[in-house]
């Protein structure tokens, strides 16, 4: 195993603290549960430790972590195919309170996201929740920008369809 130098080891902790929320949140949005997201985050940071911090800048570290996180999520979900049932998408008409409504909408959206193929899920999560540019998403997914744009628009159409069927 390639050990990172002592001065960099301190900065590994800094990178871990700075990026852990990003990695965990992304993994959670793609995988849909915290336990799996924690496993993916651990593995991503161990890979970062093995790789070392030989990046041009902090942005490059972040992009590398996004790519590794998405790949680990893809690996993890490759065996599990998304189910096409709508039973888990909660109905909208449960609460009138705005904050509760928002919370409920989040849950519905997460449930609908879970029904998408994992690559489309990642293509939506990275720009919409993580705020990445199309170029960054393309780098993270290892696809072209054109493919990513197509995946995003297809995923949004599917999401709308799932949510509207849930409302009906």
């Amino acid at each position, binding site marked *: 195993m390639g050990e990172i130098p002592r001065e960099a080891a301190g900065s590994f902790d800094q990178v871990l603290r700075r990026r852990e929320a990003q990695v965990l949140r992304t993994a959670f949005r793609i995988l849909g549960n915290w336990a799996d997201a924690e496993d993916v985050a651990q593995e991503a940071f161990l890979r970062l430790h093995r790789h070392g911090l030989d990046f041009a800048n902090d942005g490059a570290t972040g992009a590398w972590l996004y790519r590794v996180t998405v790949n680990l999520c893809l690996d993890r979900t490759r065996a599990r195919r998304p189910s096409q049932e709508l039973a888990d998408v909660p109905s909208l008409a449960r609460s009138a309170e705005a904050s509760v409504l928002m919370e409920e909408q989040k849950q519905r959206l997460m449930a609908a996201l879970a029904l998408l193929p994992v690559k489309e899920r990642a293509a939506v999560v990275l720009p919409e929740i993580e705020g990445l540019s199309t170029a960054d998403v393309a780098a993270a997914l290892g696809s072209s920008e054109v493919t990513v744009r197509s995946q995003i628009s297809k995923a949004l159409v599917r999401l709308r369809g799932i949510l509207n069927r849930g*409302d009906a």
Partner: protein
Amino acid sequence: MNEQEMREVFREMRDEPVPADSLARVRVAVDQRIHRRPWRFAWKLAAAVVMAACIVGAFLLLRPGKPVPIQQVSLPEIAQVLPPVEIPPLPEVPVRTAPRPKRARPRPVVEGVPVSIRIETADPDVVILLVN
């Protein structure tokens, strides 16, 4: 839910905090796994060294020893090294032979004469007769 509403919900999700216990668990697990590895590596290295030492030791022990050089000595040299020793003649001892054991002569078998043995038992009415 239309696309605009979806994007609004996504933006809300962006600001959601990550659970502190999840963050702590990841931090601890990463730290443990990073610091456990050198020990695991050291154990593996130590095991490999011990195994190599055992193999080398076994090889040295089981290897046939070096052949001892045999000094070629000519017969005259041996004669020089070992002077002839005179062996005194042994005193003559008369040899006694042990007397042969006498063989018992086989009794001559008389042909044509019937031989009978009469054995009387305790019972006066029972008599055993062995004929020939």
